[in-house]
């Protein structure tokens, strides 16, 4: 499964440094527009770093390489984080960072497949991704491909009934080539997700639906690496889910302590402060 490209990626740059770089790029893009889903990006950066620099097979120079793992961004709102990861992975040129959300940019505010290299689906209408992932996993099996399907979704999408249709479908069809990643930051538009339509106990729910379940601290890089490895190595027909409890705004202390909100307000003079905070804690 491991290709040449992966060996290069797993070089001497630490995953923690990759996560920091992803955070920096997301903050820089937020500054371009003066807004963005930066809180979510900071929270999910570790998960994306481990995905793109440890778990997922791809070729930077050929984003449509047939042997790649399919990484679906069900939650189109997280595009700002995903673009940062695509740039860090060399799939999107970093020179385009300043175009984020602008007219004619390849990086619209919500992720869409037709705009961006490496974007496998148009997400954003929440709850789409997992069912599309089921189809792709079935399709890969039809083609006798060993590639995996990853679906990155948010805890808010657990409220959509379609998510559970797909959860049943994935288990029914024994899709052991499907790994679902749930970014559980307990935050959605009107407040805490557990406070409006709680999916808890979400690990027990997925287990009852027939999935191989892991629940980890999604900001702990070692735990992420171990979980991805266990999901890949698991010797069973079940689809895999990694529920990642993450902290909004992780890595920028003055934002972490700000009143939690779906759409974190950042004042014009705070973008540089956020970058400074990231640099201060930057790993080598």
């Amino acid at each position, binding site marked *: 499964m491991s290709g040449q490209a992966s060996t290069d990626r797993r070089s001497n740059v630490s995953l923690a440094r990759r996560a920091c770089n992803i955070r920096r790029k997301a903050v820089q893009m937020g500054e371009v527009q003066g807004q963005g889903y930066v809180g979510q990006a900071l929270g999910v950066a570790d998960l994306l770093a481990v995905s793109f620099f440890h778990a997922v097979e791809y070729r930077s120079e050929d984003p449509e390489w047939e042997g790649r793992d*399919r990484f679906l961004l069900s939650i189109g709102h997280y595009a700002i984080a995903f673009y940062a990861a695509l740039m860090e992975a060399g799939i999107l040129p970093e020179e385009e960072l300043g175009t984020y959300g602008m007219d004619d940019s390849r990086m619209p505010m919500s992720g*869409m*497949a*037709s705009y961006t290299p490496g974007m*496998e*689906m*148009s997400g*954003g*209408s929440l*709850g*789409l991704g*997992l*069912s*599309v*992932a*089921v*189809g*792709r*996993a*079935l*399709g*890969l099996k*039809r*083609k006798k491909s060993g590639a995996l399907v990853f679906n990155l979704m948010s805890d808010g999408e657990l409220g959509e*009934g*379609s998510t559970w*249709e*797909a959860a*049943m*479908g994935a288990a*029914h*069809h024994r899709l052991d080539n499907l790994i679902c990643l749930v970014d559980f930051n307990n935050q959605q538009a009107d407040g805490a997700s557990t406070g409006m339509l709680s999916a808890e106990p979400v690990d027990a729910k997925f287990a009852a639906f027939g999935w191989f379940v892991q629940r980890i601290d999604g900001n702990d890089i070692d735990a992420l690496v171990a979980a991805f490895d266990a999901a890949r190595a698991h010797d069973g027909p079940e689809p895999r889910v990694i529920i990642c409890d993450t902290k909004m705004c992780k890595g920028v202390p003055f934002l972490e302590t700000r009143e939690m909100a779906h759409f974190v307000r950042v004042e014009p003079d705070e973008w540089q402060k956020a970058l400074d905070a990231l640099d201060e804690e930057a790993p080598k």
Partner: protein
Amino acid sequence: MSAATRARKYEPRKLPEGKQATSAMIASLEAEGYDTVSAPFGHALNALAAQDERIVGLSADLSKYTDLHVFAQANPDRFYQVGMAEQLLMGTAAGLAHEGFIPFATTYAVFASRRAYDFVSQAIAEEGLPVKICCALPGLTSGYGPSHQATEDIAIFRGLPDIAIVDPCDATDVAQMVPELVAWNGPTYARLLRGQVANVLQKHKPDYQFKLGRAQMIREGKDVLVISAGIMTMRALDAAEDLAADGIDVAVLHCPTIKPLDTETILAEAGKGRLTVVAENHTKLGGLGEAVATTLLTAGVTPVFRQIGLPDAFLEAGALPTLHDMYGISRRAVAEQIKGWL
């Protein structure tokens, strides 16, 4: 309002002298005088699948009721049963299409259009994926009431960019549209006729062949032009025979592709000064009638224009022959309406 006050009182229908009450269990269409073909959709799909490995079939617990079971029996390894989950049906079809397959996704028209619309729009159409949605029980072809009567499916899908919409009339249309749907480079929505399907068009025009995007004259006539789709072309052809006995000469332009609309043929025919009637098995809102009206007005072609179609209402439950009479889409009702407009 309590449920009790909403329920209607039983009032036996007043029947014409000598007429028996009709059972609501009568589910088939009245199509007297035509031969039928069994499961034309399933057999056509089998024939195409034998040549095209990309084709797979999916159903949401309705393969037996969409004739996809014919495909499933012949190609068990290419059939995906997703269960009673229409959003999963469309999402799964999208995923398979992403991987290079051409999925035929089947359910009832009400469920594809109402329940799964966002998945059709965002997972399939916005991505330009070649998913072929084929749905039984179009318009008023079920006596079950609004839960199963897809009176607005075309209106729902017409607003969706890039999708081709087909409303076939008969077994020839159903069978011949299958390869044409695959040849269409993108998503399609087709209404299905299932089971024993009448062979209508070639009886009236032996060399008729379905062509996606084309309206075709099935019958010439100098007094009235009927532009019709789906089973209403059969109704129009039958009514035309009845009206001919009264000396009324009716032309029937069959327009099974609702989108993209064959505006060239429609404008040419409607520009000949005849009463122009659009007949559709669909609410008069948002379907073929309004599409034709917009086409005519925009081009400055303004014949006397009338619509035959279903009312803007939730329809009654009951037996189909009764309902088709009641809502003006039976052979007799079509002839009467046209006569009244002359």
